[in-house]
Every structure is written in structure tokens, then in C-alpha cells.
């Protein structure tokens, strides 16, 4: 199977421009090194790759694999002065003539190439747009900087670009500021900006990682369509093998700055050659594989209704007041959580899924006692509402939380041993000697060694830190652990190991989990029951099988459909787009959101009827 034959594509994806037109970008022997305290260290070593015209090349790898550094090296935007290109060439070719080596180009000439011939979009659309300038001004200015169009023409081009990325009412949007747009809209603006100048090469560094899964689907499809129309070559950098399968013609797998494997998407997924690629693919959570827990699921759902539940939440409301106006009075209210009820039995994992802003994290915070709420939270048979401060502290021992970002949730100035011992100390458990033994045991239990107790959080990797957080949560032997997006920030292989650890701990100690995630594949893997949240309310709840094999609510269906399948042979048909933005949970005072009624479809499968 020859590379770039251009006829191997399956499904709906057929590029208009032939891939055989020769490479547009050639990287050979690229070595990038970063100067640290211990001297220079290569972050990209001897990388060679070519990018054909109209092709989508995915560079995939886990954090620290050097994939982002490669992108920055192409753009000549390496962090200065620490990083530099040590050797190698990056040749940008014209269609007819030779080309220029970007690695040796001075800043002034490089600036003309950036944006005009190579454009880049970044992971976080909010940080890469200037928050104090309207998007119209930013777009028009970037067009003016690279062309000699008049202001009026540049404006027309900007509107065209916004229309091309399917932003409704493009003209009036020009006056809006980045914060007035949702994450998906912002990323579209970024894409519009990148494509307005019709570059030869578009580098997209994790363009959808910060977006919700349904929005991700839309943005990916948009990228694909635009590429087909313009014949742009795309380098897509991602850690998500699902995205790779969805988008790539060819794939480069990187690890520790080196290319591990290169090939067509179909080859990489069907016949991976390198061990690392195989491991990476094996670690990817897939929908439809979470069968290990099936047997007990039925009986669990019955158990959950019994009074033995570790936590019962009844008609929980969380509101945040927004002040405004001249006197700063409360005039609007965010209805973050709007009357949800569920219960969790021992040994059970209830997953709470939904997209950002649906109130799933706020629910977790209410359970953990971090935000004030209305309604009832009953833990271990005791309603928190009627308890005094000390009693509440005692009851709260049974509920522990693991946060999303293991880098942010550990005090960087404390030794990890002290951090894990802290809950014991606070609740006055065990003497000093016993405590340090308990902590050592916890360390070993979560797969760390007791010698590491003396270290500080920054000396650990993300996965290890999350293990420390787990050890900390386990220290009080809680009945319920709330895992708020606890594996979302981790690389897939690490994610798989942390999920395994969580399952093991559940088997061993009978802990119940409230597992909060936006990742449907992970949820299917770990949960017994699933509750889908939308705008602060539960729209569907049932056992994992009920929800995944028989989703009844349109939103649930949409969520499941939006997950990219890590298999290029099973590319999805066109993804139904939401043309309007997701409505906001912010309402004026006195304006109550409509309450959804849940209907039982049998065996505890609840669906909202509208």
C-alpha cells in the first residue's frame, strides 16, 4: 500500500485535491532541545516527516512526547530562550519551485509566513484570542497584516471566513468579544482566523481537547469540510486516538521525542507494528467494551432503592446569585443544579455525565460540602441538613473527593506524606507512629512506594499525583468517593491504570463512587448506573446497559453518538449539528426553569418526558 495514493479513504471522506501533488512540508532530522538546569535535553530527536498537499497528518502521543514542540518548531515559536532547533531542516515547498528552510529563517521573514502560509490553532481558544478586542477587529487586523486589501475588503473577507465556519449571523458577531462566545464558537473563530488567509498548512494543536464532546464532533467535522474545500494540508496534534481515527489520512506516533511509528490511519489501527502503538491503542477506552461488570448490574439497581444506600440526594438545588445594576442587587440567578435526586448503594458506581455547565461538578461540590444547597443530602442514613457543625464533620468523613486536576489539588508546599496523613490528623485518628505506618500502607496500596512520602507534589507525574489524591481520599476509609473528572487530565495509558486501581479499591473496600465525567467511553467502562445531566437536571438515568444500549432521551443519544470511535474503518456518518447555542442556566429572578418530570420505563430506567 503506497503512501499518498489518495484512493484508500473510506466512508464519506474524499478530498477534492489529490494527495499526489507532492509534499508541502518536509521535515528532516529535526532535533529540538530545551536547556534546563541539568544542561540541554532533546525534546524532539531526529524527526523526519513529510506532509502532502491536501493531506491530514495526525501526530499522536502522550504528554511529553514532543508533539507540541514539533508544531512550535515549524512555526518558529519555540519558547525562548530555553528551546532551540539543534539540527535539521523544515522545508516549506511551493507548488512549482523549491522551497524555503524555516529553521534558518529570521524573525522578520518568518512573520510573513506565519498566518499567511502556515496557520496554527491552539488548544485553549480563550487564551489565544485577545479578550479586550472584538473578534471582528482581530480577524480584520490579521487579514490586513498579510494582504494589501482595503479595510472594507478585509472586513468582507472576515465575514466570509466566519460564514465558512458556520457561525450564524456572522456580521453582527464581528462586534462581539471573545467572552461573549461559547468555547465551541471561539474555536470556530480561531479556525476562521487561521483559514481566512487560505494557508497551505494548518497546524491544529489539540484543537478540541478543551471542548465538550458534542462540540468536538462539530468542530472536527468543520475542519474536515474546510480542508476538502480549500485543499489545505492539516497537521493535527492530539492525544485522543478517537480523534485520530476520525480525521487522519496518515498517522505519526511519537514518544519521548522520537517517532515510534508512521503509517496510514487504517494500517496503524488495524496492524500496529510497534509495541508502544499497540499499548496505546489497547489503553483507549471504547464504548461497547465495558462488559466486565454486566452480571451484577441488574441486582445492583434493585439494591440502590433499598435504605442501605450510602448517599441519597433528594431534590437538590444549587443556585448562584449574580449581582448587577447600580446598587449591586441580586438580579439574576444561575440555576446550576435544579432539583435532582439519586441514590448510591455500597459497591456501586454511579456516573454523572453531561457537558460543561450542566451542573455535574456543582452537584459534587454540594455533596462534598463546598457549596450551599437546598434539598436533602442523606449520607449513611443521616440528613446533613439537621446536623450541627461537629456532627456534620463526622458525617463528611464518609464522603471524600478526588479532583480533576492532580496538579492543582495538592498543596505544592507540603510533602506528599504529610498530605496523605492530614485527613487522619484532622480527624484525630491514630497516633503519630501509627499514622506514618498507615500512610505508608496507603502509598503501597495505590501503587507508590513508601520512600516517596518525603517528596513534594511537583516531583511526581500527573498519574502518580492522582494516585496520591486517591490515597488521601482513602485515608479516612470513606463510604463514598466523588471522582470529579478525575482521569480526564491524564494520558490514556495512565488513565487506564488509574481506572483499574479505582475498580480494585472498590472490590476491596466496597466503596461507592460518584463518577463525574464528560467522557462517555470512560463512563461505560467503570459505571454500574448512569445519570445524564443537562442544564442542571437529570434527563435520563438507568443502569449502564439501559442507558448505553437503549438511550431514550435525545440528548443522551447525541452524547453517545458524539464520541469519536477509535477505528478508522468505522467513521461516523455525518454528525447532526446543533445550530443554536446551548441555552444558559442563568435566569432572571422570579423566572423559574421548567421542571422535567422523569418517567420510569421499567427496571428503574428513568427518562425525562417533555
Amino acid at each position, binding site marked *: 500500500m503506497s503512501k499518498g495514493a489518495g484512493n484508500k479513504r473510506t466512508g464519506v471522506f474524499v478530498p477534492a485535491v489529490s494527495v499526489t501533488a507532492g509534499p508541502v512540508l518536509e521535515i528532516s532530522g529535526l532535533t529540538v532541545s530545551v536547556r534546563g538546569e541539568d544542561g540541554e535535553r532533546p525534546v524532539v530527536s531526529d524527526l523526519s516527516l513529510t506532509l502532502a498537499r491536501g493531506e491530514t497528518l495526525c501526530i499522536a502521543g502522550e504528554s511529553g512526547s514532543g508533539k507540541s514542540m514539533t508544531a512550535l518548531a515549524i512555526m518558529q515559536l519555540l519558547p525562548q530562550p530555553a528551546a532551540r532547533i539543534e539540527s535539521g531542516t523544515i522545508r516549506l515547498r511551493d507548488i512549482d519551485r523549491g522551497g524555503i528552510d524555516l529553521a534558518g529563517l529570521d524573525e522578520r521573514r518568518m512573520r510573513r509566513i506565519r498566518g499567511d502560509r502556515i496557520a496554527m490553532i491552539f488548544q485553549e481558544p480563550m487564551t489565544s484570542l485577545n479578550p479586550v478586542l472584538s473578534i471582528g477587529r482581530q480577524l480584520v487586523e490579521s487579514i490586513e497584516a498579510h494582504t494589501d486589501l482595503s479595510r472594507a475588503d478585509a472586513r468582507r473577507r472576515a465575514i466570509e471566513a466566519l460564514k465558512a465556519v458556520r457561525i450564524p449571523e456572522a456580521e453582527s458577531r464581528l462586534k462581539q468579544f471573545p467572552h461573549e462566545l461559547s468555547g465551541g464558537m471561539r474555536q470556530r473563530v480561531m479556525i476562521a482566523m487561521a483559514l481566512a488567509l487560505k494557508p497551505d498548512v494548518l497546524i491544529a494543536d489539540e484543537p478540541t481537547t478543551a471542548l465538550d464532546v458534542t462540540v468536538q464532533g462539530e468542530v472536527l467535522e468543520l475542519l474536515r469540510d474546510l480542508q476538502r474545500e480549500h485543499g489545505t494540508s492539516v497537521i493535527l496534534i492530539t492525544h485522543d486516538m478517537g480523534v485520530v481515527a476520525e480525521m487522519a489520512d496518515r498517522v505519526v506516533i511519537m514518544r519521548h521525542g522520537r517517532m515510534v511509528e508512521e503509517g496510514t490511519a487504517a494500517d496503524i489501527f488495524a496492524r500496529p507494528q510497534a509495541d508502544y502503538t499497540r499499548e496505546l491503542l489497547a489503553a483507549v477506552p471504547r464504548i461497547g467494551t465495558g462488559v466486565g461488570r454486566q452480571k451484577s448490574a441488574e441486582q445492583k439497581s434493585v439494591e440502590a432503592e433499598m435504605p442501605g444506600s450510602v448517599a441519597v440526594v433528594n431534590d437538590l438545588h444549587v443556585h448562584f446569585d449574580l449581582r448587577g445594576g447600580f446598587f449591586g442587587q441580586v438580579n439574576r440567578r444561575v440555576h446550576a443544579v435544579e432539583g435532582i435526586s439519586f441514590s448510591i448503594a455500597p459497591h456501586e458506581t454511579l456516573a454523572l455525565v453531561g457537558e460543561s455547565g450542566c451542573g455535574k461538578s456543582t452537584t459534587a461540590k454540594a455533596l462534598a460540602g463546598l457549596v450551599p444547597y437546598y434539598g436533602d443530602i442523606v449520607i449513611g442514613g443521616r440528613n446533613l441538613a439537621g446536623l450541627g457543625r461537629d456532627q456534620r464533620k463526622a458525617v463528611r468523613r464518609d464522603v471524600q473527593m478526588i479532583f480533576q486536576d492532580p496538579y492543582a*489539588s495538592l498543596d505544592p*508546599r507540603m510533602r506528599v506524606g504529610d498530605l496523605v496523613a492530614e485527613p487522619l490528623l484532622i480527624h484525630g485518628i491514630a497516633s503519630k507512629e501509627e499514622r506514618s505506618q498507615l*500512610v505508608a500502607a496507603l502509598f503501597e496500596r495505590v501503587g507508590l512506594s513508601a520512600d516517596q512520602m518525603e517528596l513534594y507534589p511537583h516531583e511526581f507525574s500527573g498519574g502518580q499525583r492522582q494516585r496520591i489524591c486517591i490515597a488521601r481520599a482513602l485515608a479516612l476509609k470513606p463510604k463514598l468517593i466523588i471522582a470529579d473528572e478525575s482521569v480526564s487530565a491524564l494520558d490514556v495509558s495512565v488513565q487506564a491504570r488509574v481506572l483499574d486501581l479505582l475498580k480494585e479499591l472498590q472490590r476491596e473496600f466496597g466503596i461507592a463512587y460518584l463518577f463525574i465525567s464528560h467522557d462517555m467511553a470512560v463512563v461505560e467502562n467503570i459505571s454500574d448506573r448512569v445519570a445524564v445531566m443537562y442544564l442542571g437536571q437529570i434527563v435520563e438515568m438507568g443502569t449502564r446497559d439501559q442507558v448505553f444500549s437503549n438511550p431514550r432521551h435525545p440528548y443522551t443519544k447525541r452524547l453517545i453518538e458524539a464520541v469519536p470511535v477509535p477505528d478508522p474503518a468505522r467513521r461516523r456518518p455525518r454528525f447532526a449539528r446543533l445550530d443554536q447555542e446551548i441555552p444558559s442556566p442563568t435566569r432572571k429572578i422570579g423566572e423559574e426553569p421548567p421542571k422535567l418530570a422523569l418517567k420510569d420505563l421499567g427496571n428503574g430506567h428513568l427518562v425525562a418526558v417533555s
Partner: protein
Amino acid sequence: MTSPIAPDLPATGRMPIKPRAGVWRRLFKRPLALIGLVIVAVVVAGAILAPWLTGYDPNEQMFDGLTLEGAPLPPNASFWLGTDLLGRDLLTRILFGARTSLIIGIVANGVALLIGTLVGVTAGYFRGWIGGALMRFTDLMMAFPALLLAICLAAVLQPSLWIVAMVIALVNWVQTARVIYTETSSLAEREFIDAERTIGASAPRILFRHILPHLLPTIIVWGTLGISTTVLLEATLSYLGIGVQPPTASWGNIIFENQTYFQAAPWLVFFPGAAILALALAFNLIGDALRDILDPTQRGRA
């Protein structure tokens, strides 16, 4: 789950988690910090041993301390740093003045720092009406001219060194409180503070174990900046007749007495000025080193 694992882990019994040890030792290893320590030690020793170091009395107006025209003498063999307008030995006055200035620069400044930090941390963490009230009070203090307040306070109370120190502490905490407040309120939003609350940590524990250590760099910077400002504020107060009464020497009032003669007798301003600078610099060097030593994220990066 405790019983089965205890026997296989004898190692942990032998190495309990140590508190921060060797801060001094690590301080000594840094050349710049060492310079700072030496300067502070010299100033302190000079202040304590002042009566025995030079053969002069700080307040004695010597006949041979002035030229025949009545002008002060520049530095020479018998008066190492020269003499002042009244024929007093400048070196002796600086040594005795160090007593006053150290008390002001360290004690008064330290108290101001302490008040500022406590107010800022409390207001920043608790917000609500406590925070509101504290910060409005801080704003009030800020709006009030510090000098006027100091004059009022000092006029009501009997002027003495300790009163001056107290007055300085009471007017100088405001800026610290503001800065600490802002920093605390952003720290309180960080996720690890939420994490502490979920394990049931009490407010004092969060404040003192988890927030305060993060404020250390700011506190150190404000502390070292405060040394020179407070020393000079003392001089201002003394000049206005509220502070240390003449003929008692302090670095600030030596400068103030002589600044109009700067062109004719520059040494009279230069030497006490250099002393203030050296002391502030010394604390700055120590502070910088301490900040790095106490910040664990700076270690083990190799």
C-alpha cells in the same frame, strides 16, 4: 486494613517525616545570604557594643571636632567617619543610632507586618461581612495621612522610642494588608484549598498550614521594603519633635539634621544613608535566600 501491612514495612518506622531541618545550614551555604547575615551581625554587634568600640561619647560636642571656622571635620585618623555640625563623632553616633534604628526597622516593622498579614489573611479568606469590615477599615487607614495619624498618636502619648515604634507599626500595616488580602483571596479559590475543605480541615488549619506558606515570598518582600521606610519615618517623626528626642541618635535623625549641608559635608548624609541601605540590603538578601529555601518547589528540580 492496618494489621496485615504493618509488619512488612519496618522502613517507615525508622524514617518519620522530618520537619524542615537545616534551614540555617542551607542559609550558610549561599554566599549572598551569608553576606546578609554578616552585615546584620555586624550592625547588631555594633549596636550592643557601641559604648566600647570608640573612645567617644555620642553626645559630647568636642572642641577639636570642629575646624577653626566651626565647620565639621571630614573623615580623618582620629574621627574615622568625620564629625557633625556640633563636633560630635559621627561613627559613635551611627553605632548608638543603630540601637534606635534596629528597634524601629525590625520590631516596629515586624509588628506592622504581623498586623497586616493577619488582617489581610482573615479578610481574604473569610470575605463576607468580616472581610468587608476589615478591608473598609484598612481603606480608611490608607486614606488617612499616615504622618498626621502618627502625630496625633504621638501627641496624645508621651514621646519615647517605644511609642514611636508602636505608632509606626500602627500606620505601616495597611499596604501589607491590602497586598496580602488580594493574594489570599486568589489562593482561597485554588483547588487544593477546596480539597482541604473536603477532608474536613478547619479554617485556622487552612489559613496557617496551607495559605500562609504561600504568602511567604510576599511577606518577605514587604518586610525588607519596610525596613528602610520605617527607619526614615522614624526620622521624620523625630524631626517633627515627636520621635526620639535629641540628642539621642538614630540613623534617620542624623540624616535629617544634616541634609541641608549635603554639599558642604556630604559624609554626614552618606554614612548613615549607607548604613540604612546596607541593613535593608542585608535583610533583602537573607529574605531572598529564605524564600528559595522554604519553597520546596524550587528543590529537587535537577
